[in-house]
């Protein structure tokens, strides 16, 4: 038995989309080495064609994200190194990224990296949602927002009055 969606080539080699997704799990965010691009939710489409070529589509977290070309290259390199001969990687806005697309595992990875994960939102973000973000170190909500902009476009700056530490949040984005 083979999985539905398994593609064989003429030599009998095969590849499934699930296998490609698994291979991609080792590609990490260049800024957050604990978080994979898959868990970040920026890989939007994996397609295995009849000739076993693979087409990947990605979506940017921010339109102006300067890392997107580099991330395309990392995805490409990963699949080439895994022995896939024909790989194409492109970025488009067919699926717009928002912070709810980060997986549960991804949210834990962010926390492990010392970043407050973005709270789930209902398609609307208010300035109040940014206040009193739970501190990733001690869990206290006795915190304040220092700035909605941090070291990268996807992070904001906060301060915890309980453990007296500055921390960053991966911003909620609609």
């Amino acid at each position, binding site marked *: 038995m083979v999985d539905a969606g398994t593609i064989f080539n003429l030599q009998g080699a095969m590849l499934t989309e699930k296998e490609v997704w698994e291979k991609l799990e080792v590609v990490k965010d260049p800024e957050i080495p604990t978080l994979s691009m898959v868990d970040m939710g920026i890989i939007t489409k994996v397609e295995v064609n009849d000739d076993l070529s693979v087409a990947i589509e990605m979506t*940017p977290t*921010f*339109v*102006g*994200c*300067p890392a997107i070309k580099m991330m395309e290259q990392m995805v490409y390199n990963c699949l080439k190194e895994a022995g896939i001969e024909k790989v194409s990687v492109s970025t488009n*806005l*067919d699926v*717009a*990224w*928002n912070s709810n697309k980060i997986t549960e595992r991804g949210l834990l990875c962010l926390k492990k990296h010392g970043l407050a994960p973005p709270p789930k939102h209902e398609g609307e*973000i208010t*300035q109040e949602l*940014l206040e009193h973000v739970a501190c990733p170190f001690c869990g206290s909500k006795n915190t304040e927002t*220092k*700035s*909605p*902009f*941090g*070291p990268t*476009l996807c992070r*904001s*700056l906060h301060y915890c009055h309980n453990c007296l530490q500055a921390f960053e949040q991966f*911003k909620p*984005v*609609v």
Partner: protein
Amino acid sequence: MNTATIKELLYKVADDLLIIGHRHSEWTGLGPILEEDISFSSMAQDKIGQSQALFQLLYKLGEPEADTNAFTRNANQFCNAQFVELPNDEYDFSTVRHFLYDHADQLRFEMLAHSSYEPLAKLARKVKGELKYHVFHANTWMVKLSQGTEESRARMQSALNASWNYALGLFEESKFEKELIAAKVFEGEVALKSKWLSAIIPFIEKAGLKLPPEKEWNPVNGGRKNFHTEHLELLVKEMGEVFRVEPHSQW
């Protein structure tokens, strides 16, 4: 809908973003406190990235490649509003302009998210979420600085007075206005301006500032029709300087 109409719309939005983005970037290294330095730098990065995405849409419609378009045109080929090309001056003016412009920009992208021109609608649905942070930042500082000291309040009021007629120039109508509205590409500048007024007035009141009396409202138009102040020429020259040295180099 003919492409000339769409192109005109894309150009004005792209040029506004590129030019204000460049102005914001001039605060890099000069911000009054580190967080503010980072904020203006981040907003610059967002805005220039968003303009690049619009230039890519224009490229698909037969216009020059994005970098060429952004960095090799002359000042009299830009159609940004004059408001965004004015020099940064001091933090009071930069903050007031950021506040007035970003509310307009966010509302514009919220409208464009429903555009019948799907490539633009797709981009707008993403951009409008990003711009929320720009608006939050602007609202915070607009109120904070206006409620600081007597001097800071007076400075913010005079920056608002100096900005106002330029800000109204953001809503200069296109000669294709009727077609754009009829084809549901864009709801139009009149509708945008009215939403903008409703959005900004509560914050201006909260800040304790006063709008100039309505009889003195006199939009500084012309930017959309390629008429600019002398400041744009210097800006464009500096912005494209590196690109023009070696236009074919790979980055």
